[in-house]
C-alpha cells in the first residue's frame, strides 16, 4: 500500500486525508477475492467444506452447527434455489437450513427421517413457490 499511496497523510488537509482513506478502502475492497465471489461460488465452497467435515456425523444438530452451514443459513432466501438444486442431485442434510430460512417444514410427520421423501417434499415446495 505504501507504494500505491506514497503520501502517508503527511502535509495533506483533512479532506484530502478522507479522500485518500476512502480510495484506500475501495482499493482493498476491490482486491479481496471473497467480495467478488458470486453467491453460487460462495455456496459451493461452503457446502463442500461442510459436507467434507460432517459426513461421519449422525447428529443433525452437530451437522447444522458447522460454521459453513451456519454461514449458508445466514445467506437467507437467495440461497434457497442453490440448496434445492444441490439437494436434487444428491440427498443431503439441508432440511435444518431450509426450515431455518423459510420458517416452514413441508415434510409430513409420517415421513420424518425418510430422507428421499423429505427431499421430494422440499423439491415439491420449491416448485410450488417458484424457487426451482
Amino acid at each position, binding site marked *: 500500500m505504501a507504494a500505491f499511496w506514497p503520501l502517508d497523510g503527511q502535509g495533506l488537509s483533512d479532506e484530502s486525508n478522507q479522500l485518500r482513506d476512502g480510495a484506500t478502502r475501495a482499493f482493498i475492497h476491490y482486491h479481496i477475492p471473497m467480495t467478488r465471489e458470486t453467491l453460487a461460488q460462495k455456496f459451493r465452497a461452503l457446502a463442500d467444506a461442510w459436507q*467434507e467435515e*460432517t*459426513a*461421519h*456425523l*449422525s*447428529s*443433525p*444438530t*452437530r451437522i447444522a452447527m458447522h460454521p459453513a452451514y451456519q454461514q449458508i443459513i445466514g445467506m437467507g432466501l437467495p440461497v434457497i434455489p442453490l440448496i434445492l438444486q444441490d439437494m436434487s442431485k*444428491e*440427498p*443431503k*442434510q439441508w*432440511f*435444518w437450513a431450509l*426450515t431455518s430460512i423459510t420458517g416452514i*417444514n413441508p*415434510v409430513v*410427520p409420517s415421513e*420424518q*427421517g*425418510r*430422507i*428421499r421423501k*423429505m427431499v421430494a417434499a422440499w423439491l415439491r415446495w420449491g416448485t410450488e413457490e417458484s424457487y426451482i
Partner: protein
Amino acid sequence: MPLTRLFPNLGFSDYQVTSPPSADYNCIAWAALEDDRWWWPDPNRIFYWPEDAPREETLDGFVKTFELYGYESCTSTEIEVGFEKVAIFVDADGEPTHMARQMQSGGWTSKLGTLEDIEHSLRGLEGDRYGIVAAILRRPIRSL
C-alpha cells in the same frame, strides 16, 4: 478421506467396509435394525424418533428410548449367548454421538453418518470424533 484418518483407532484392529455410502439412514437406525430412516431426537422434529421415547439428545434419553425396544443396561461388551447388544458413544460433554450394534460373531457393526457401514472392534471408533463408549445395552435375541 480414508476412514483411518477420521478414526485412527481403526488402524489398530481389523475393520471392513460392508456397504456403499448412504444418506438414507444413520447409526441409530442401524443399531435399531433399520436402513431406511434417519433417527435423531432433534428439537425441531425434522427427523424420526419413536413417538413414546424422550426427545432428548442425552445419554439417558437414548437409553430410555432403547429400553422401549426391550434393551437393558449391562456392563460387558463381550458376546453373551442369547443376547444382542448395542453400544452408545458420547463426547466429552456426555452427549450421544454414535451407536454400534454387536453381531453374532461378537464384532460390531456401525453406520458412519452418511458414509459406509463397517464391521469393527468397539474401541476402533473411540477417539476425537465419537468420544467413548458410555453405555452397553442388551436384550434377549427374539426367535423368528
